[in-house]
């Protein structure tokens, strides 16, 4: 699974993209956030407050309780601030 990180999520983790293979038990975006938090101190810092995170699966915004299904690309980031 391709993971993408933006803004302070990217900064805290130290990379904007990585390919990971989460275990079967990781079924939703919230599960993924929980699991990612255990990977490194940087990941832990980035995933510390799930309420401040937003997500997209295959380039479409999804709520954090969305099922990952057969997602190829999952992105995690703070609320958007463009315009």
């Amino acid at each position, binding site marked *: 699974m391709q993971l993408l990180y933006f*803004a302070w999520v990217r900064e805290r983790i130290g990379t904007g993209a990585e390919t990971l293979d989460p275990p079967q038990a990781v079924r939703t975006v919230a599960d993924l956030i929980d699991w990612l938090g255990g990977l490194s101190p940087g990941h832990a810092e980035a995933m510390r407050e799930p309420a401040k995170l937003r997500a*997209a699966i295959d380039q479409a915004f999804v709520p954090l309780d969305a099922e990952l299904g057969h997602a190829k690309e999952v*992105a995690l980031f*703070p609320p*958007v*601030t*463009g*315009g």
Partner: protein
Amino acid sequence: MINVSVQPAPIDLPAELAAVEIKGAGGIASFIGTVRGDGGVTELTLEHYPGMTEGALIGLAEEAFARWGLLGVTIVHRVGAMVPGDHIVFIATAAPHRKEALESCAYLIDRLKTDAPFWKQEKRGGEAAWVEAKASDGAAAERWT
């Protein structure tokens, strides 16, 4: 005609404005968002999600095009490093009558603020800080649903 661009280059306002003028349009509304220098901001950096950004903007443009019976929609959003006074975003809508042009232009900037994957980082002197989303932006986007 829909024209969407996400670009590091400065926005060429006269060219973009001229391009959205369609034969038959009675009204063209536009909005320019600029980098504000208040609060001591010296630089603004726009990060985005390549691929998804363009898709989101095209989706919004198509929605407005159909909803207001538009003749033309242009959305140009700059990314990368900018300074106060620089143009961040340019939106223009062309319609047979003014009401449709004005409403759809307001719709697009409201929705862009919540529905397109951009993130702003402000620099004040040496200090960099990510801009936090405003609750008022969510409310502004909601009023169109």
